């Protein structure tokens, strides 16, 4: 189910502005890869290119190759809509659909695509996804209440349930815990550990402890200066990045001596 992502020579542009320069990396299946780096260094931008979400921004485009197993997702006949069904995404701010109940939010992927689901199928998907997101016990008695009425942490787990309900092969997470309290953060980190068994997970985080806790691989992004493009500085086993990184820049960043 989980798939490997191979990126080679990827440049990301907003109009004429080069935002991320020449990234090549391999993201292993059934593992968690963390992207760290200072604000504005292009890690979120790069993450969004992995499921062609950046195209939603007017003027954004890429050069280079992103292979999902043996398929180039930027190939000429590839439909971005299909790519996004394959590669799900969880956003920084929890964004459940305000017009839908908790139940409908979870099966939104099928519902919005006009897919016919039998009641039993839908029930099954909702329960499995909510259990998978560690949310079932908390909401099983109020599935028909609006999703926007949950707490911030619950909403974020609802969004994860929604993303996993369409059974993607890769799950991208853009700072999923940045607006959450430590307990909700812990719940989501536990969830990431569990999801790793079935998915390829890529997570952007500002929290280095979090990267150290949840990820197998860590990629450090940085930019040479304001107005310059962001770059991938180093990518390696998380252990190695946090104990003896190869580049001085990486060490400066993770030890807090950031210049």
């Amino acid at each position, binding site marked *: 189910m989980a798939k490997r992502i191979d990126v080679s020579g990827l440049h990301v542009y907003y109009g004429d502005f080069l935002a991320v320069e020449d990234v090549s990396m391999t993201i292993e299946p059934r593992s968690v890869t963390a992207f760290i780096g200072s604000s504005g260094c292009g890690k979120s931008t790069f993450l969004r290119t992995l499921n062609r979400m950046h195209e939603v921004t007017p003027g954004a485009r890429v050069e280079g190759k992103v292979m999902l197993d043996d398929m180039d997702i930027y190939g000429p006949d590839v439909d971005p809509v299909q790519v*996004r069904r394959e590669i799900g995404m969880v956003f920084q701010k929890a*964004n459940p659909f305000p017009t839908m109940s908790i139940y409908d939010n979870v099966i939104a992927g099928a519902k919005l695509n*006009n897919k016919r689901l039998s009641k039993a199928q839908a029930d099954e998907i909702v329960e499995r996804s909510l259990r998978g997101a560690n949310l079932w016990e908390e909401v099983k008695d109020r599935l028909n*209440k609006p999703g926007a009425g949950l707490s911030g942490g619950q909403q974020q787990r609802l969004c994860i349930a929604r993303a996993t309900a369409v059974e993607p092969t890769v799950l991208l997470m853009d700072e999923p815990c940045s607006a959450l309290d430590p307990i909700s953060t812990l719940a989501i980190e536990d969830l990431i550990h569990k999801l790793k068994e079935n998915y390829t997970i890529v997570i952007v985080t500002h929290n280095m402890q979090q990267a150290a806790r949840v990820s197998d691989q860590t990629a450090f992004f940085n930019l040479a200066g304001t107005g310059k493009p962001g770059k991938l500085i180093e990518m390696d086993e998380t252990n190695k990045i946090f104990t003896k990184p190869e580049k001085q820049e990486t060490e400066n960043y993770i030890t807090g001596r950031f210049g």
Partner: protein
Amino acid sequence: MTTTTRTPSTGAPGDGPAQRQPRLLSGSLPRFAPPAVLVAAALVSAGVLAALGAFSWPGTAVLTALLYLVAIVIASTAAENARKAKDRLVTGVVYICFALAMLPLLSLLSTVLINGLERLDGYFLTVSMNGVTPSMDAGGVYHAIVGTVAITLLAALISIPIGLFTAIYLVEYGKGRLAKAITFFVDVMTGIPSIVAGLFVVALWMMVFGPGETNGAAGAVSLAVLMIPVVVRSSEEMLRLVPNELREASYALGVPKWLTIVKVVLPTAIAGLTTGIMLALARVIGETAPLVLTAGSSAVAINWNLFDGQMMSLPVFIYAQVRMGGAINMERAWAAALTLIVIVMLLFLAARLISRFFAPKLGR
């Protein structure tokens, strides 16, 4: 009275050594002070004017307002402090402005109610003016209600899809010159005087159907010309209010753009969209000038057919009756005005109900 309440006689703040350390405390007027001052101001003004032999209600009101502002500022400065006095002054001014704004509205409503209720009854609402001579004590407004409802419905049918789709284009797809041009022309259209919209349709009908062709459809088209820009503007604002995160959430689930618009953006904005559309409808339902030109002003019989013959509508009916000028005509005009106001109020009520029904629920 509470302990923090101090009358001027016990001293203003900062007066005496005991006041020095608790700077956080300051006197405050009791809660009944503003209404009491208002009543006193009203009594004094009425008394003074009566004593001068110049009593009148408007004069008393103006004098009361001025006296109240002066008195409350003096009382507050003495018992409280300068900041609170300013606050009370501005609060007073705001209330007075509110009263001034309400005055014409209340006067209009009461006048229409008093004059309109004389003739407004079941008979008036259910018969037309067919075979009724202008000064006969008979006849009603049914044909005009029919015309207003039919013309407005057709106008809505034309302008809601056009307006809504234009707004969707502008918000979701439009970029570059075309979108800018559309926005510009919508703005220009908003400023078209209604009589010009009427003349435009008269000219159009003349070109297409030949001279002398007046019918309900022409009226509806002229109303649609006035209504489309309003619908576009309000819908555009509402669609822009839908957070981008929701669109992204939908895209990230592999939902195509058009389904995202249909199933996420529109339902999220539906409450605002319906309110905007209802307001646009209420705006055109009272238009007179374009309808006189396009749908005619002399129909007396019930005509359900939008495409054949003149069609009376409520605003035109009022206009025509007032033009005739007899006592009975004036009564009919008032009653018709009341009917029109009631219809508009029903529309607003419907809009409120719809927006409450569709509004995203938090369900806490």
